[in-house]
């Protein structure tokens, strides 16, 4: 999840901080810079793939550094920030919303770290007005953390606190609830106004909000330690009380052809980054990956020590899995927790066709995340004894079911159905069966809608067709039309759903066929 650092560069941030050390003049802005440096240093160790942007604001806002993984470019800018005029949080937040929507769309969780000086710049009334006017919640999932560079005892902080709390609360109550995240942002107040205290607060923020996510990917006896990036968020599912958190063991259940899998409804996607195997977990579970006789030939023993130092030369299951998934065009179904599944597939960015990686798609919790696969908990291995169904599992609803002549709300649909009947009526005796089939369909729909007027009217139309028959027409036509018209208007059976109209069984049918 990308991060936007929203840094207050208003005039008040340039106030010097009283220190015992007089040789160096420290302002709130330098403290903020130190905090940002701490943050970036933390990321470069723990979350190198995180995108970060630096946005400065006062009464206006400016994208100082757009979203990047090159943290040094942000650090380089920190020394040359232009100071602005007045803190204006709501404008800045509105601006950030625009920037993020433009860049990340509305499905990506974006975290914002607001670094300000603990004053909202206005009185109580103005503050409440700001609270009213906050451009929150944004239309994308978001979290806002606030780091006020202020001594905890200053009155202005007490004054600004309700505003901060409101920002943090509102930011997480996103309107787009498909990726319901329950983790909120937080306010990280330093213990005192000093570089050390602010850095401590920032470190706390990092540790709480930017924890890398490690887990074990298990496929039978084969397993490997992996990192998921971005770290998955707990999911809450509408209609279910439970909140779902990914367990630290992801079990492969089995495999599917990619085209059978399709694109299930994923709530988030994560890179699976293989991690070096730690060497000291020589338990029995690892029996399989242990290659017992690998060092059977003594010539290899010398390379073993090297292998341990260079993790890229130790065989890793992830690389194997990726290769095999790609070659076979398959995807793995993995179990993320109770009643929760995901898919692992080889993914490759269109623009970088050669750089491919393993991608975990976290599905919506519950067994129905991909209806065409059937209930996910009932996916099992092929077995000789059970008759195998195939994918896709057809939904019992179909779009044509609604077309069984009950969608007459628009007149053209009714018109089309009646015309069909009349078309068949004109092509008797060839279309006798079709005529009765359509008539019964029409009847059924009309009866369920209580539309007896229609039946009377169609009966009339059939009689007219009968009258308009040319003299050359076989006599059977007239008989069938008259029979159908009468049946449609027969008061005893016309509205009886169990009654089916049958063609008139005439002797003519027999004789005409014998000709």
């Amino acid at each position, binding site marked *: 999840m990308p991060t936007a650092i929203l840094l207050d560069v208003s005039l008040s941030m340039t106030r010097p901080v009283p220190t015992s050390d007089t040789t160096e003049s420290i302002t709130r802005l330098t403290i903020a810079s130190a905090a940002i440096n701490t943050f970036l240093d933390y990321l470069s160790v723990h979350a190198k793939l995180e995108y970060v942007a630096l946005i400065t604001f006062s009464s206006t806002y400016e994208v100082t550094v757009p979203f990047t993984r090159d943290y040094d470019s942000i650090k380089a800018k920190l020394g040359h920030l232009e100071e602005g005029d007045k803190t204006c949080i709501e404008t800045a937040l509105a601006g950030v919303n625009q920037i993020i929507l433009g860049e*990340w769309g*509305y499905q990506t969780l974006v975290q914002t770290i607001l670094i300000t000086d603990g004053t909202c710049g206005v009185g109580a009334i103005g503050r409440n007005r700001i609270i009213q006017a906050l451009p929150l919640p944004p239309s994308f999932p978001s979290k806002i953390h606030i780091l006020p560079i202020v001594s905890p005892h200053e009155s202005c902080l007490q004054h600004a606190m309700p505003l901060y709390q409101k920002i943090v609360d509102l930011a997480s109550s996103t309107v787009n609830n498909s990726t319901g995240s329950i983790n909120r942002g937080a306010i990280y107040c330093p213990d005192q106004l000093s570089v050390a205290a602010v850095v401590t607060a920032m470190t706390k923020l990092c540790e709480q909000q930017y924890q890398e996510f490690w887990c074990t990917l298990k496929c039978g006896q084969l397993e490997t330690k992996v990192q998921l990036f971005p770290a998955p968020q707990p999911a809450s599912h509408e209609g279910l009380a439970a909140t779902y958190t990914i367990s630290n063991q992801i079990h492969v259940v089995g495999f599917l052809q990619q085209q059978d899998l399709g694109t299930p409804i994923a709530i988030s996607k994560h890179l699976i980054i293989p991690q070096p195997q730690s060497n000291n977990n020589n338990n029995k579970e690892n029996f399989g990956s242990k*290659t017992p006789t690998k060092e059977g030939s003594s010539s290899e023993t010398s390379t073993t020590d090297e292998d341990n130092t260079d993790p*890229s030369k130790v065989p890793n299951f992830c690389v194997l899995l990726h290769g095999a998934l790609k070659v076979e065009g398959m995807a793995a179904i993995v179990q993320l927790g109770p009643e929760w599944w995901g898919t692992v597939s080889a993914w490759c960015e269109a623009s970088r066709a050669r750089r491919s990686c393993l991608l975990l798609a976290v599905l919506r919790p519950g067994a129905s995340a991909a209806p065409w696969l059937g209930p996910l908990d009932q*996916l099992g291995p092929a077995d000789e004894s059970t008759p195998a169904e195939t994918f896709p599992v057809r939904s019992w609803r179909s779009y044509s079911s609604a077309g069984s002549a009950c969608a007459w709300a628009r007149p053209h649909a009714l018109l089309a159905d009646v*015309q069909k009947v009349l078309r068949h009526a004109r092509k008797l005796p060839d279309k006798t069966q079709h005529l009765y089939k359509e008539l019964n369909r029409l009847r059924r729909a009309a009866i369920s809608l209580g539309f007896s007027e229609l039946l009377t009217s169609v009966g009339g139309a059939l009689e007219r067709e009968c009258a308009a028959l040319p003299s050359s027409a076989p006599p059977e036509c007239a008989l069938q039309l008259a029979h159908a018209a009468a049946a449609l208007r027969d008061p005893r059976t016309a509205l009886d759903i169990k009654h089916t109209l049958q063609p008139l069984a005439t002797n003519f049918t027999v004789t005409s066929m014998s000709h």
Partner: protein
Amino acid sequence: MFPTNHKTIFVLDHTPYFGISSDFPIEFDVSKSRGPGYVPLPPVCKSLWTCSVEAAVEYCRIVWDLFPEGKLIRFVVSDSAAHLLNTWTEAQQNLTHILNGLCLVGPVRRGAGGDVVGLCAAIEALGEPSPNQSSRPTTERLFQNRGRIICITSARDDDSIRSLAEIALNALVQQNKKLSMVPPTTSADATANTQSLVVHYCHLVIVNVTPEKIETRVNNQPLTEMGGGLMGVEVIVSRASALANLLGRLVLPHYKLATTTVTGIPMKEEQNASSSANYDVEIIHSLEAHAGLRAAQTAAEALESVVLRWWTPRGAEGGASGCSGPLWRVTPADVASRPSACLVNFLLNGRSVTLEVPRKGGGRSASHVLAAQGGELWIGALGGRTPYDDPPALSEGAGGRITDYRIKEFGSVMQQNKLLPLRGAGANGRARARLQRHTTYWPLTISSTIIFNLGPVVEPLSRLVVQETLSEAEVEACRGVLLSLLGMESRHESPAAPLPSNVRVKWCGRREDQWRQVWGELEALVRAHAASPAHRALLRTLLEQNRDNNIKKKLNIIQCSGESRASVIRATTDSPLSPVGAGGGAAGSSAGAGDVWAPRNALEALLGAPRPPRRPDFAGRMAAGNRIATLYSTFARCRSTALVFYM
């Protein structure tokens, strides 16, 4: 937890008044005049009842197309009594059931009665728990039970509408009161699951229907709260002919839906296939699908249909896989129209199509994709960066420099562990158990194994041994594999001899070492699967064979005074190990697991002394694979292996 739209109840007025005509004539005899004397048919008018039924059914179709589960609708037909057409159970939540029920109700008959009966029955029905609600454990019964009642009726004036709402509110209050009187102890009973629930909120939509020409004295009323937030009442006045449109519009806010008009779909007419015309199709889907487009739009604009242009697909496009985010179900707004049917069929046949935002200034930007999966239609939004783009190359990560992964073999493991839709519980567990068996002994790289590179020689065994059980014939087949290997070894062939030379992998070590590794791996493989009696029998065979083999070989070598072997035999006589001792050691290995990894044959034992240009590798390290070896790990378990270390 359970939103208001979890439960919806239609109350349809079936009183005699609804038998009157809607006075909205529908011409259906539009065929061209066929000469003189041809009398056109009179147009037909639907009754109010027909109009309300078809509108309600259309509402249901949209809801059930988009939400196969969790959004429940019930029908109450009200005349002198209340007829409940269905219950909350899943099996009765479909159009077929409703239409059958409507058939039985039949057209409007004479008689008294009105909406009041039906409305009260509907409120009672709201109290009944849905399957989802009753599946909640009783301890978690603190959810809000909300619902919506859409009552299609016709009232004289505002006053009668108001009294209708008041009657509904009264019924609701009475019902809740009655439930709260029930002592809470009963909630612990087993019968609690069928017990009625308190209704926390009811959204009552009263639709007042009139024929075309009749003046009505009922006015629209916006949503007003009654009974302290217990009930929200909304009154909408509609002509019967416009009722279907009205409900088609109402369904959008009720289920947070939005419409998109796909414009410019090229379609060919059957009659003149040479030319194509452009059509528009309106589709309905979740409002969320528009979230990206709506960012800069006002609330009023959000109610209108978004127009997206058809982007004629070229060749095989990615379909829905292009979207990184969620997908939403789609249903056509007008299911009976030909362009809709055409679009639906196009998608159901497996094609997908990209939609773009029409721009005046040129330049295209794909915004959505439409595709079918599993017989249902879906829309997904495109665009936006993903936080995982520009991933680190796998080749630079852990294990990235290894090039001899057994990818093809793992591919066949994947094929053997393909999932299929089964019925019944435990399917996932069986799949995982199977995968567990298939990977019990599974070297990751080609260079770390010999037996899996031997192709058809070992293949029957490696294929069969992963099964849960082995039949007599299968055990025999495995024995055959072992025998043929033995034969090869006794002929002093390299294990790789039967393979074409181009697939041979460079294996280090001498032939004897290779055979030693082959037997070691085989034993590990079979031992790892020794769960069933047949497997254990196979393992016994393997171990016995190993021992016999060793003795035989030794005898062979001793007897054979061959020219090249002469020096070897001389060296053998110096060996501290007697042949009998070596045989005993191999037999002992079947009992203790400690020396599985170092199965030694007599040959090796015989060659032991003169062989090493270097020292033999530490047996503990052999056992540990590429991990740190633990010293004396087997000491406690098997004293006899300690001998091995000192040899």
